[in-house]
């Protein structure tokens, strides 16, 4: 008779990666504070901060009134006076209510004080569509902040990046807008074993998620999954797609994009934000500026239509990037 021990599942999800990052940094830095709406007693609307108030106390994990300007503005003051702050937006959509404090106050502090004051603040929150969240629980508004000098803009797509990039952002000493993809929080298919120890993923370094030779997909967030699926489908047609996950929009790792294009000569940029003045256009402009000679076909972008994100599924599917739309774009650039 033999007993087969159950193999313990050592894989962790994206949300656990975030939670570990926060608790490790809180442990490491006694001057760090977390605040936001419902982050304490409730542990966050999605549970990212669950257990932190019990562990670190009410003074360091603080439930805030529904006041995004005060959440950001007080974080600025705390950081001005020596603290490190992680501020949660309950949904990243709500960040617009704190917009002035972010773009005119927090983002510009280092610049207008000639470097006297650097603010170690991470503003983080659940982001992205594909879940039927409708207009105000689905946004990817990263372009607003990429267009506001002085902010780092980070979008992790794996559990280990969620952990390692959040820890690195907290320690960077600069204001950061950190987009957590809420569809990934508990997604089984992206669970992974997290590296042991003090996991830090450098900001400004893209990750090649799949090697390929015929076309390069440059993407981030939710669309990393779509690009990987599109690459599978293209493989069946004999087309080899490389998938680059930017992870960090500001600072941007141009070099990894250019190296890939030197090999594939074809580019499709995919993001779920609206097209006009979106980050996909920025990537293409930089490629045209600095790596035009690598291109054998006009670069394309697959983005949301220039619409809000609608609620019910047929409408949402219609306006967002999909595997099908990405495959279609890839075939266009390959067959150009």
């Amino acid at each position, binding site marked *: 008779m033999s007993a087969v021990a159950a193999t313990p599942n050592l894989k962790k999800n994206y949300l656990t990666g975030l939670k570990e990052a926060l608790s490790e940094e809180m442990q490491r830095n006694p001057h760090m504070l977390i605040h936001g709406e419902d982050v304490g007693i409730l542990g966050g609307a999605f549970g990212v901060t669950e257990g932190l108030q019990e562990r670190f106390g009410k003074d360091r994990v603080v439930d805030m009134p529904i006041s995004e300007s005060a959440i950001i503005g007080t974080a600025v003051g705390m950081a001005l*006076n020596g*603290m490190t702050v992680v501020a949660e937006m309950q949904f990243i959509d709500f960040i617009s209510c704190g917009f002035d404090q972010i773009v005119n106050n927090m983002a510009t502090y280092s610049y207008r004080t000639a470097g006297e004051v650097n603010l170690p603040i991470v503003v983080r929150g659940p982001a992205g569509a594909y879940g039927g969240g409708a207009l105000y629980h689905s946004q990817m508004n990263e372009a607003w902040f990429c267009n506001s000098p002085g902010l780092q803009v980070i979008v992790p797509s794996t559990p280990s990046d969620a952990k390692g990039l959040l820890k690195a952002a907290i320690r960077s000493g600069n204001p950061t807008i950190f987009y957590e993809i809420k569809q990934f929080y508990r997604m089984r298919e992206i669970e992974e074993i997290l590296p042991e120890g003090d996991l830090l993923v450098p900001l400004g370094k893209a990750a090649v998620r799949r090697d390929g030779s015929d076309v390069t997909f440059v993407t981030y967030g939710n669309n990393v999954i779509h690009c990987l699926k599109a690459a599978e489908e293209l493989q069946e047609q004999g087309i080899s797609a490389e998938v680059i996950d930017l992870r960090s929009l500001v600072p941007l790792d141009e070099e990894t994009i250019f190296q890939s294009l030197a090999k594939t000569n074809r580019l499709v940029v995919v993001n779920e934000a609206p097209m006009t003045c979106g980050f996909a256009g920025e990537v293409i402009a930089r490629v045209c500026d600095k790596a035009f000679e690598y291109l054998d076909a006009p670069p394309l972008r697959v983005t949301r239509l220039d619409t809000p994100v609608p609620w019910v599924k047929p409408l949402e599917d219609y306006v967002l990037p999909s595997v099908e739309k990405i495959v279609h774009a890839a075939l266009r650039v390959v067959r150009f």
Partner: protein
Amino acid sequence: MSATSAPAQSNPSADDAEQKKLPHELLSKEDCLEIFRQLFLARYFDVRLIKEKKRGSLKGTLYSSHNQEAVLVGTLYGLRPNDWISPIHRDMPAFFLKDIKFQWRNADRMGLSIDSICAQVYGRVDSPGRARDNWSHIGSRAKHIIHSTSMLAGTIPVAAGVLYADRMAGGDAVAVTYNGEGSTAQGVFHEAINYAAVHKLPLITVIENNQWAYGTPAELEYSLEDFARRADGYGIPGWVADGQDVFDVYDKMMQAIEYARSGKGPSIIECKTFRAYGHGDHDDDRAAKYRPKEEVERGRARDPIAMCRRRLLELGYLSEDQAKLFMAEGKNAMETTNEDFPPEVVEFLSEGIEFAKKSPLPAAEEGAKWVFGGEA
């Protein structure tokens, strides 16, 4: 007087006054004369810069604090060096008046030097912000002065956050934010004071009610008689001060400081005053047209220097002869001469201006620097 459940019009009653001396009555003669000198310092800063601009030595808009000096001097005088302040555009003298008491030229004091303020006004590299943003958009973490932006009321949450961190570190600082009545209509004004009230932070919100928000009169800005009543909505005390009377401002401020330092929380002080000229000097000519003449004359008639002078005479701190010297009150910038100000005031600012004129412009390539921290 206890401010715990202070009603809006909680100015001290006659009974209280008999029982207990007002804070300004405890000031020494030396302190009172210093306060008088500081009113001249603020006024001279204003009139001298207007003259410099008219002479062509200075560019940029000037936001006059003329006629509102008692608010600044009266609120700043009772602070400790490590307290924080957050001045805005009409409070330019606050940057150097902070912690200036009896030590005008001490570079180590917890206020900015007159040299650095003049360098800022002139847009020179020796400004605290190396001339990267204009006029009052400066500050100093080291000196506990919060840097403002043009988005008014936007520094109130910053001050609240500073105080939260100070409390976490075991400190006992208070913070004072300066606001025109115009900025009280901003949403962030409410968000920040509400937060400070929830956490009982020692935040003192000074409202300089000068009756005009640029070109919009008070009756189109709010529907209250006394702004101090706004405090009721947050469960905090509010005081109304005569913003022309430096000693009344000082009295209300000392009550607010005592309340804050004893751990009871934030408060509001409304200082009723009057903007003597335009929103900025670019607006002086238009302001003379869009504001009723009688209203302007009435507002300027109660000059804070004159009111302080009368009080010092009553107290016997100025002799009749001394009180006839330095008659700056009631005059606009171009009507004044240096003889209208104490010589040490003229000398103090003149040195600052000479310093600024010699300070170089920043190197052009600095325009691309310090977007992020950590750059050398």
